[in-house]
């Protein structure tokens, strides 16, 4: 019989404690992997999400709020800017594209955002990728009351081309606040895995001139998405100087990725705490392998003595116990990988529903190999304690009673 078969027999004989210990490793491992993957993926996803623009111009206020509001379609607007401001930035020689956004309405909780067709026709939400309408649909005609729905919004609202919608006032849905204006859905965007999927897009003028909105709304915008000309590295700084340092009325949120990164840097201490907790849980789980194996040594003294009497060397016994701890941790981590994939899917689903972003794949992260390797190595190391006890068992004393 090989050492592995002896180990397998022993684990089967102590199936319950083996199972419980492996399960605790699985939970700890899943927590460890999930924390690492989720914090990394969330940071990467949010800092990499810029909808294809370099900056956002909005009313004076927080840059983060401006980005959250215009790119992620979260948070309240910090205020409005004038149409002249849009015209000015549009004419700026450093600007390649400026797309206006106006918001303030919703369809059953999904934001209605007024914009220009250029958002779909001239910008790329990711390099080489433009928004595309599903077959049978088209983009809205700026002169008509037409709407294009993000894929997630269309799915949740159960709408298809040809259906009608009545936007409600405000960013949060409240029954009885519907505008009289009726918009016809003319297209559904193909999924882009960006916050745009959760939005109901209508022509800019449609939102500005919506029945019930003030006259002032017709002359204001919520924000302008700005793409700078390529190869002009100083343009962002110049506009930062102009709007943020010299001006007092507007905010220039640039570059979008760095603003989101600053948010994550600010809450970095929370990530460290999560890592610490996950690490501690992992250590406790590894300690449980030691405790469970160590305690079982008392019950197994006779068994070990018999093996030694049959000629098993101390090193063989030592190796068998270390291997037991390793196998328990390996089985635990395999289950832990499955659990972490489940946690990732659930959290990813929540993020998609709430924010509209899709986290990158679970499978490619480096923690998926170094995490289990560390856990299994720690368990093997922890197994040396009971292994040492096992190989010190007094053979003569633990065999049959002496005559």
């Amino acid at each position: 019989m090989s050492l592995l078969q002896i180990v397998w027999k022993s684990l089967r004989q102590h199936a319950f404690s083996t199972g419980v210990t492996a399960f605790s490793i699985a939970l700890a491992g899943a927590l460890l992997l999930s924390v690492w993957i989720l914090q990394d993926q969330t940071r990467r996803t949010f800092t990499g999400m810029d909808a294809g623009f370099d900056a956002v111009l909005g009313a004076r206020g927080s840059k983060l709020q401006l980005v959250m509001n215009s790119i992620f379609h979260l948070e309240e607007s910090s205020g409005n800017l004038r149409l002249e401001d849009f015209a000015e930035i549009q004419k700026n020689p450093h600007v390649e594209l400026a797309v206006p956004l106006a918001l303030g309405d919703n369809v059953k909780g999904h934001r209605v955002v007024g914009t220009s067709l250029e958002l779909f026709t001239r910008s790329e939400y990711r390099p080489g990728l433009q928004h595309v309408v599903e077959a049978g649909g088209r983009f809205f005609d700026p002169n008509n009351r037409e709407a294009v729905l993000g894929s997630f919004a269309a799915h949740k609202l159960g709408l298809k081309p040809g259906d009608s919608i009545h936007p409600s006032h405000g960013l949060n849905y409240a029954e009885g606040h519907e505008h009289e204006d009726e918009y016809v859905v003319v297209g559904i965007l193909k999924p882009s895995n960006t916050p745009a999927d959760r939005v109901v897009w209508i022509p800019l003028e449609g939102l500005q001139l919506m029945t019930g909105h003030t006259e002032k709304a017709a002359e204001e915008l919520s924000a302008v998405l700005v793409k700078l000309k390529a190869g002009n590295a100083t343009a962002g700084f110049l506009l930062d100087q102009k709007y943020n340092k010299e001006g007092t009325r507007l905010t220039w949120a640039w570059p979008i990725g760095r603003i989101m990164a600053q948010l994550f840097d600010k809450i970095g201490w929370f990530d460290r705490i999560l890592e610490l907790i996950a690490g501690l849980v992992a250590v406790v789980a590894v300690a449980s392998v030691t405790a469970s194996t160590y305690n079982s040594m008392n019950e197994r003294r006779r068994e070990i003595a018999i093996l030694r009497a049959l000629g098993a060397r101390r090193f063989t016994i030592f190796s068998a116990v270390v291997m037991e701890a390793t196998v328990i941790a390996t089985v635990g981590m395999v289950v832990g990988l499955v659990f972490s994939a489940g946690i990732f899917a659930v959290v990813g689903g929540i993020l998609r529903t709430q924010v509209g972003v899709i986290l990158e794949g679970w499978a490619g992260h480096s923690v998926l190999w170094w995490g289990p390797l560390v856990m299994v190595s720690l368990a093997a190391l922890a197994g040396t304690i009971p292994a040492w006890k096992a190989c010190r068992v007094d053979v003569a004393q633990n065999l049959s009673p002496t005559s």
Partner: protein
Amino acid sequence: MLLLNITELQKRFVDPEGKSTCVVDVPRFSIQAGQEVALRGSSGSGKTTFLHLISGILSADSGRITLDGIEMTTLSSSDRDRLRATKIGTIFQTFNLLQGYTCLENVLLGMSFGPGPDRGRARQLLERMGLANRMDYYPRQLSVGQQQRVAVARALANRPKLVLADEPTGNLDTVHAAAALRLVREICREESTALLWVSHDPTMLSQFDERLDFHELNRACAVSGIAL
């Protein structure tokens, strides 16, 4: 040919009160290859300790044990384990079968630490022990007599040079005890294996031509006053 030669072997133990007691003090003992020897002794006379010293489970405080030309007292613990696995087979009074292993696996396990598992040999031995239909049974599913036969098969599996039998029939009735002895002797003779049979049962001892009193062999018994 001399297989086992013991000279001036001593083993002492320290009791919980710190007093050192000599348990084994054997000036001379030897067994020839293929020889059958019965050793008679009462409980507490140090027979099991003596066997543990021969098998290398315990190390001697002084004296020499030479087995098949190898001086055991100079060997490392690991080398003694190896020697035990390859040259010695032990049959215990309490059988010492591993409960989580089937009959066949118990025999194979004994081989694993020696020359390596030989499934054919293990099966053949168990068949000879009348356990052909019990190979996949666990010890708890066997009668006491059957368990003892598995233990015998395991002790003989590695074709040892010497079989140490420590009160091997102590838990068996007369009929089963006689059958067990017959089987062990039969195979030992076939394979030229020496047999050291320790017992205090006169019926079993009477089966042997060569019988020794451990009390005469072990000077420690005379000192401690242990009666035969």
